């Protein structure tokens, strides 16, 4: 019998493993797309009780037990199912305890053994399901019901979770340990199982549930605050749309000003030294003189906060119009080259009847000669004509210059 059960179990698990892809697809999508899979495989899964059809024209879905296995194994946060049916678990435990006592009483030890192991299974699985429920609740709290989008949905989810918590707490209240103690009587195994173990679990869970409840309320408060703010803003816009000439009442004209509006005027404006105020110059100088640059760090090269834009473009052409005086001097030089004769600058000026002042002319001629490149300069000789200054030695007064080809 038990080897049959073992074999059947192994077969079922193998089937689950073999068709893991289909099962996971169905788990994630909610229902199975029958056309996409081999009909014989689908049929096998249906027979094994893994898939089922809730209504004749509905798609195939995963059986609740398989779903629950996956939800628990994957810690899937979408799992909202909480088994808060403490009453039936309690009744089962009591019934099994009675069976065990009866079997013991009639000295049917093998039956008693079986009942006891059955009872332990129930007690432990009950404790596990309670702890699992609390884990699920924490999971939902910790991601703040992130699996639903809107604040309103989050508030509803939170309310669902709160009702589940209160149901669980109500269920826990049904455990009367005095009654369980009576059932257990003086049988040591039974006492250990249904009094000590259960009591420990209960007190742990009740404590944790009250923390969960506190957190849920806190979250709910926050959600409501967020929703309240959204509504406040929308309501404000609606109200001001409806009453375009609405102005808030003067809430600060009362004797008692609400502390919210008690804001002092700024006392400090951004300060700056007035360097143009001469009367403060002395003090400012004193302050500046006292500044000591203390640098404990090596001076860091200033880094430019942003790149100064630099663009390389063709430089624009420009020309300086030639000075007519300079052009006349150039002509004078050309004249000297062409004639090949020694020529006085002032005579040239007079000959050509050029309009310039004699002094500027001489300056420009000297400047033109000095401004020649060295190789060109070598072709000319320039001799200043004049006399030394009668009073201040070392000064030579130029009256005229003569230019000739070297």
């Amino acid at each position, binding site marked *: 019998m038990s080897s049959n059960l073992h074999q059947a179990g192994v077969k079922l698990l193998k089937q689950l493993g073999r068709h893991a892809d289909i099962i996971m697809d169905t788990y994630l999508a909610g229902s199975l797309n029958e056309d996409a899979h081999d009909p014989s495989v689908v049929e096998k899964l249906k027979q094994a009780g893994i898939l089922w059809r809730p209504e004749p024209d509905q798609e195939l879905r995963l059986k609740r037990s398989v779903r629950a296995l996956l939800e628990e194994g994957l810690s899937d946060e979408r799992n909202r199912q909480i088994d808060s049916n403490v009453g039936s678990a309690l009744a089962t435990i009591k019934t099994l305890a009675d069976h065990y006592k009866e079997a013991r009483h009639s000295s049917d030890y093998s039956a008693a053994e079986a009942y006891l192991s059955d009872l332990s299974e129930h007690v432990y699985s009950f404790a596990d399901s309670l702890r699992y429920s609390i884990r699920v609740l924490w999971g939902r709290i910790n991601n703040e019901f992130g699996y639903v989008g809107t604040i309103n949905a989050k508030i509803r989810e939170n309310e669902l979770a709160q009702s589940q918590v209160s149901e669980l707490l109500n269920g826990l209240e049904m455990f009367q340990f005095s009654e369980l103690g009576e059932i257990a009587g003086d049988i040591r195994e039974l006492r250990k199982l249904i009094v000590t173990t259960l009591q420990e679990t209960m007190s742990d869970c009740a404590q944790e549930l009250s923390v969960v409840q506190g957190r849920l309320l806190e979250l709910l408060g926050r959600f409501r605050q967020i929703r309240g703010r959204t*509504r*406040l803003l929308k309501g404000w816009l609606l*109200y*001001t749309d409806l009453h375009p000439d609405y102005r808030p009442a003067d809430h600060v004209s009362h004797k008692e000003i609400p502390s919210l*509006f008690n*804001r002092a005027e700024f006392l400090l404006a951004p300060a700056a030294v007035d360097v143009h105020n001469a009367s403060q110059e002395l003090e400012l100088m004193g302050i500046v003189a006292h500044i000591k640059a203390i640098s404990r760090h090596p001076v860091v090269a200033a880094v430019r906060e942003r790149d100064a834009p630099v663009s390389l473009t063709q430089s624009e052409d420009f020309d300086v119009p030639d000075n007519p005086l300079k052009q006349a001097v150039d002509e004078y030089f050309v004249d000297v080259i062409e004639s090949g004769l020694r020529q006085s600058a002032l005579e040239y000026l007079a000959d050509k009847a050029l309009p310039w002042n004699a002094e500027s002319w001489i300056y420009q001629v000297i400047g033109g000669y000095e401004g020649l490149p060295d190789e060109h300069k070598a072709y000319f000789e320039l001799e200043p004509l004049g006399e030394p200054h009668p009073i201040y030695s070392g000064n030579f007064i130029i009256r005229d210059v003569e230019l000739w080809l070297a």
Partner: protein
Amino acid sequence: MSALMDQSTQTVLVGTGALIELLLKGEFICRTTNEEGWRALKNNSTRERVEAYLNQINRTVASAAEGDVFFCGYLQLGDSERKVISSQFKDICQSLIPLVEWLVLVQEASGQDAPLNEGAPVRLTELQSRIEDTPAFREQLAKLSQYRLFGSTSSNSDAQIKLVFKRLVELGYLVRPNVEKQIYIATGKLDYLYEVIRFIDETEGLSLEAQAETATQRDLI
């Protein structure tokens, strides 16, 4: 050892000095704008020290938003103080409509459940593209940017939104932690604003929340 202690008291003093200065400048201190100062004010002993200093010049540390935003208020109210408060109240009342319109626009354009609150980031480029893609949002932006609070005269939505954000930073409702990035963070002054609206709502019995709820229910039907 004594040098070490000296140094530590000194930094504390310098710290409260800077804090007092900020308060006297009329700034709101919250976790986003100045976390260090905010922590210092949350700490009773530093807060008392700041309070003692401010009390000498008829000022006090005031707080809003469940003690998460601090600002500077008057200790005793004389006629001149009342005048200041009354003009400030007028200012804030005038800025309520543009600010609320802006908050609703940001919330709707970014498709969020919650309106902006302290510490919430706003990515300007993202928001801008969403607003520019939707004519209704564009219209709202154009309308609100022309309020005197923002004072935009431009008909270009890029210029409008940039100006609105610039003004909001100037007014202290937003901070921009990195000048090179277009990411803004809402400050505690916004939470203060909510409190002001709630106060007006409750005192004047406007029941704004109920009105908004019935309006959304009508929309759903």
